[in-house]
């Protein structure tokens, strides 16, 4: 294993394995029959979500849920726990190792006899693996025969240079820190510029005639890996992320993800205000001190802190190595920024950034409401923003009581 844990991380990990039981099996047992959820009269459009240290025990501010994947049209299913709930991406991606025997039962997507294999680009690295057709069940909702990515498939272990040059590969549990990524953000497909007829190509999709014989190809929007929520038969216009407040670092936090906006009694917009986003970039604007992040600000359950500004601009020192991706003020910094939607709706958001090195020294904690770090050119409202809020994620083109998506509401 190439992954060498840092000193403080190792302590956190060792402690959290005991607390969360994450040292055991990486995914649930095989089960047959219909999907989970909906029993006992509880709403079928919800699924439990939890902030915890994840399957590798070293995740900070990671939001996880259980997703059931089935070979399409069969009762051959696998419940996958510890899947990251990510509003910053679109589509379901599961580690091949977490699928166990189901991996060989899934049919891969093909075109002209070639297997379609995806190089999904994240800002922290890339995931490589074939596109499979699967039924996906989350809570009581189901999406039938949708394209999903199988990460780290032994059948396609050779990553093309065009893919590996886009970032560090995250193809196993230790590098990914989860069993998969459930992308339920504001859009349906992951690469509009990969569809035939576009003048640009995002280079997400490859046609492979063999395990190490792959070339960039186009894939139609319908055949791209996509947001499972949009493929549900009901409650498919978005999701609501509901998490309780966390006033200080703690071990875990439990909440709910509710499917649909204004479709049932449990997902009405209520007093939440709608902030529309640029349908091309997916961003809104944020003003912090004298800095305006025009069309370059976003909410993201998949980011594990508030990330903003350069250290010098923010007036906040970064931590010494190895935590130098985070801020380390000598005392908690109480800050305020203003979010403005494309529709000019605005809100003043107070937030606090504390010393990350001190926070991480709490070896029992995986929930850090005051974690912040540097990021030039973007304002990234990561998971701490979601603590103590109900946040609505409306999908592009979907009709909701708050208007047509894409938008955020809170």
């Amino acid at each position, binding site marked *: 294993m*190439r992954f*060498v844990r*840092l000193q403080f*991380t190792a302590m956190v990990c060792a402690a959290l394995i005991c607390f969360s039981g994450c040292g055991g099996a990486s995914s649930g047992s095989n089960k047959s029959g219909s999907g989970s959820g909906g029993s006992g009269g509880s709403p079928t459009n919800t699924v439990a979500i939890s902030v915890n240290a994840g399957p*590798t025990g*070293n995740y*900070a501010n*990671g939001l996880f849920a259980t997703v059931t994947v089935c070979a399409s049209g069969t009762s051959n299913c696998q419940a996958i726990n510890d899947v*990251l709930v990510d509003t*910053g*991406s679109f589509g379901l991606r599961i580690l091949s190792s977490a699928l166990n025997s189901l991996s060989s039962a899934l049919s891969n997507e093909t075109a002209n006899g070639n297997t379609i294999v995806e190089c999904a*680009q*994240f*800002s*922290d*690295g*890339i995931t490589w693996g074939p596109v499979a057709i699967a039924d996906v069940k989350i809570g009581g909702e189901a999406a039938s025969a949708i394209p999903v990515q199988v990460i780290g498939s032994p059948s396609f272990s050779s990553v093309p*240079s*065009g893919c590996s*040059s*886009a*970032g*560090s590969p995250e193809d196993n549990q230790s*590098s990914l*820190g989860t069993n998969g990524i459930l*992308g339920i*953000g504001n859009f349906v497909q*992951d690469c*509009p*510029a990969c569809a035939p007829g576009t003048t*640009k*190509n*995002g*280079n*997400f999709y490859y046609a492979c005639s063999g395990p190490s014989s792959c070339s960039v190809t186009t894939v139609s929007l319908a055949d791209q890996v996509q947001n499972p929520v949009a493929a549900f038969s009901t409650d498919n216009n978005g999701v609501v992320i509901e998490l309780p407040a966390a006033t200080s670092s703690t071990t875990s936090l439990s909440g709910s993800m509710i499917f649909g906006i204004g479709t049932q009694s449990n997902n009405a917009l209520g007093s939440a205000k709608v902030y529309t986003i640029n349908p091309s*970039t*997916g*961003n809104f604007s944020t003003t912090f001190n004298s800095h305006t992040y025009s069309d*370059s600000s*976003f909410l*993201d359950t*998949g*980011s*594990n*802190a508030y990330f903003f500004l*350069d250290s*010098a601009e923010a007036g906040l020192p*970064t931590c010494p*190595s*190895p935590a*130098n*991706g985070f801020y380390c003020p000598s005392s908690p910094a109480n800050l305020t920024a203003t979010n403005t939607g494309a529709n000019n709706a605005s809100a003043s958001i107070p937030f606090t950034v504390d010393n990350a090195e001190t926070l991480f020294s709490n070896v029992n904690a995986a929930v850090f409401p005051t974690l912040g*770090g*540097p*990021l*030039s*050119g*973007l304002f*990234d409202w*990561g998971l701490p923003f979601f603590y103590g809020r109900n946040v609505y994620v409306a999908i592009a083109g979907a009709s909701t009581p708050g208007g047509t998506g894409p938008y955020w509401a809170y």
Partner: protein
Amino acid sequence: MLLACSFAFGVLGQDVTSVRTDSARIKAAVAVLPGQSYSVHEMIAPTGTTIKEFVSPAGEVFAVSWQGPYTPDLRQLMGDYFDQYLRAAQTFRRIARHVVHIETGDLVFESGGHMRFIVGRAYLRSKLPDGVTADAIR
């Protein structure tokens, strides 16, 4: 073609002529924006991503940045420093998604964003021209 792809042709830390090589390989238009103590060569890659290369008065590329819907060819932009980034990314890290900030040796690498919108930069601390701070690189 295979040879070209595997050839370490990056520009970070290299001479300004590598910018021209880069633009030819990326098939991008280059605009030179003269600055006070350095110049910025801006390219739009075919993926729609804007790439900037920052060149010191001595003609050395001391920083690169990118912003757009898709990640550029980082190996090409960073050359030998790409492997340094990879080693650091796979070693020195707590699990983090969507944001990377790495400081290793002379190299600072930063990347963030979400699917469909990615922003990043890489620069060499010792090569920043006098009076230029990191916040100028974006």
